[in-house]
């Protein structure tokens, strides 16, 4: 009986030939990463509870300050200081203010076939490069940072076969919202979401990361796309050569297979306050917005910025709407600068922020007040996540946010791109 990509990665990491769903394994971790959302607690556990002295391998641990950047309070500054001192002491690679942790990991570290554990739920993003990434909490992370190992239960795999081609104004973001809306916020709980089919083969790395990043919003342990020429080209362009190119066997066993055709897909939107409350944009009545946000680990990459810029170019955003844009990393920011996208954003009236988690995380920049409405490319629309408990968040693609910022209300971007 064959294995899926995810099973093959877990088998390799645990030194086994075969693993099966439900089996508990002890796996060696290729990389672990932690950000400023929890690292102060990780360090406390490491030093005071584990009473550990060394990280298992400083080359396999990464600290990234991306959640509250720059620090908005003295208390946050203390958290960052604590991270910096620990990283320096243990010679751990340390990033501060250079972008969202997952984008930095993809740009600088991830290769296909790795098992990566990080103290952030969107670690599943690395499946876009064919790596098994999964999010954990402080205690698990700290244990991994100390031993290089973790126990895992091998999950079942759901397969999503995608065919067809995106129509203008429709993006990977719309596809993953549609899927989560269909299967529900716990529709993939504890499972792997494997995305394949002819359409995915033609997807860019950015598109693949968008799909895998949101897998956790359906409860998944990981999202995965089989590595191929596109993946190899991307990874080697970053100077990384060693990789394990696993693909699923033809007789691999899936718990369920879903089929989607992009020819039938239209711009989608998640309405407050659940990520799985998803409808086609044309089905919602007029919703005025107070703020738009383009960025986050899901949608702050260059392709999304290009899509937004195309719509904003030569236009002004609604005078009573704020539009905040945060490129996902320094590299994305520099690319956007060189392509003139930042000029377009600023001229349209948008505020361009430094690369960081920003509005999506709701604790740093761009929080909203009581009764206000945010339209965001962020990952979650939970009640109160963007500020006041009685505010609303809608989730959509960068193009939808851009088109809506111009009109001041939620707007189907197809009219703006054709």
């Amino acid at each position: 009986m064959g294995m899926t990509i995810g099973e093959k990665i877990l088998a390799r990491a645990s030194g086994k030939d075969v693993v099966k769903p439900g089996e508990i394994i002890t796996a060696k971790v290729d990389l672990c990463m932690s950000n400023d959302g929890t690292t102060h607690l990780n360090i406390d556990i490491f030093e005071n509870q584990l009473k550990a002295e060394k990280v298992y391998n400083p080359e396999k641990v990464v600290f990234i300050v991306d959640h509250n950047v720059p620090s908005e309070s003295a208390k946050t500054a203390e958290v960052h200081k604590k991270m910096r001192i620990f990283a320096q002491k243990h010679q751990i690679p340390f990033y501060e203010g250079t972008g969202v942790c997952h984008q930095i990991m993809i740009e600088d570290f991830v290769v296909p076939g790795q098992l990566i554990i990080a103290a952030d739920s969107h670690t599943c993003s690395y499946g876009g490069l064919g790596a098994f990434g999964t999010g954990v909490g402080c205690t698990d992370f700290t244990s991994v940072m100390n031993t290089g190992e973790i126990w895992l239960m091998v999950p079942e795999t759901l397969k999503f076969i995608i065919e067809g081609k995106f129509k203008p104004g429709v993006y990977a973001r719309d596809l993953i919202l549609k899927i989560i809306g269909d299967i529900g916020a716990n529709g993939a709980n504890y499972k792997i979401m494997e995305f394949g089919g002819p359409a995915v083969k033609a997807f860019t790395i950015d598109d693949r990361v968008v799909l895998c990043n949101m897998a956790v919003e359906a409860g998944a342990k990981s999202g995965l796309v089989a590595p191929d020429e596109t993946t190899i080209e991307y990874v080697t362009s970053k100077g990384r050569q060693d990789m394990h190119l696993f693909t699923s066997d033809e007789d691999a066993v899936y718990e369920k297979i879903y089929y989607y055709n992009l020819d039938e897909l239209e711009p989608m939107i998640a309405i407050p306050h659940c990520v799985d409350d998803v409808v086609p944009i044309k089905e919602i009545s007029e919703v005025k917005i107070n703020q738009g946000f383009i960025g986050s680990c899901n949608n702050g990459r260059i392709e999304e910025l290009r899509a937004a810029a195309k719509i904003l170019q030569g236009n002004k955003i609604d005078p009573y709407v704020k539009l905040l844009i945060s490129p996902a990393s320094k590299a994305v920011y520099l690319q956007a600068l060189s392509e003139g996208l930042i000029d377009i954003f600023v001229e349209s009236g948008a505020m361009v922020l430094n690369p960081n988690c920003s509005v999506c995380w709701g604790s740093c920049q761009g929080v909203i007040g009581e009764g206000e409405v945010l339209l965001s490319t962020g990952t979650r629309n939970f009640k109160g996540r963007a500020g006041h408990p009685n505010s609303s968040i809608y989730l959509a693609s960068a193009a939808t946010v851009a088109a809506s910022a111009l009109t001041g209300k939620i707007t189907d971007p197809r009219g703006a791109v054709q």
Partner: protein
Amino acid sequence: MIKGKVWKFGNDVDTDQIIPSQYLLLPTVEEMKQYTFEPLDKDFASTICTGDVIVGGENFGSGSSREQAPLVLKALGVSAVVAKSFARIFFRNAINIGLPVIICKEVYDDVQNQDTLEIDVQRGSIRSVKSGETFTSTTLPAHVMNILEAGGLIGFLNQK
């Protein structure tokens, strides 16, 4: 055996509701715990008693990997969380800090706020004192039970 008063919540209780992001960078869990469930119930932290039990619907603890979510519950004295289903990372984090998390679909409709539940985690049974009904819950795999019984992953590792 756990015995505690019920605090009942609905489906998809997410980690931002359990502990909003603006409090996560406070230096200690003790400082965070007063904000537990702030978006849903501002008085929760000041009125919950040690030993009380949280009862949730489907997908309890969805969202962020923030371990602060089960940590603040434990710090407030919550003795167990019983839900129809849990989000994966929350479930694992709770086990790792020694907070019992119990999957039971049937008990949800039977209990109301302030009812009392008696829970036997090892045997997988839950009894409602008010209705007298006993419900069967999912038991944990031996490896996971060992971690919970050690008071969490750190205790488990230190035992080794």
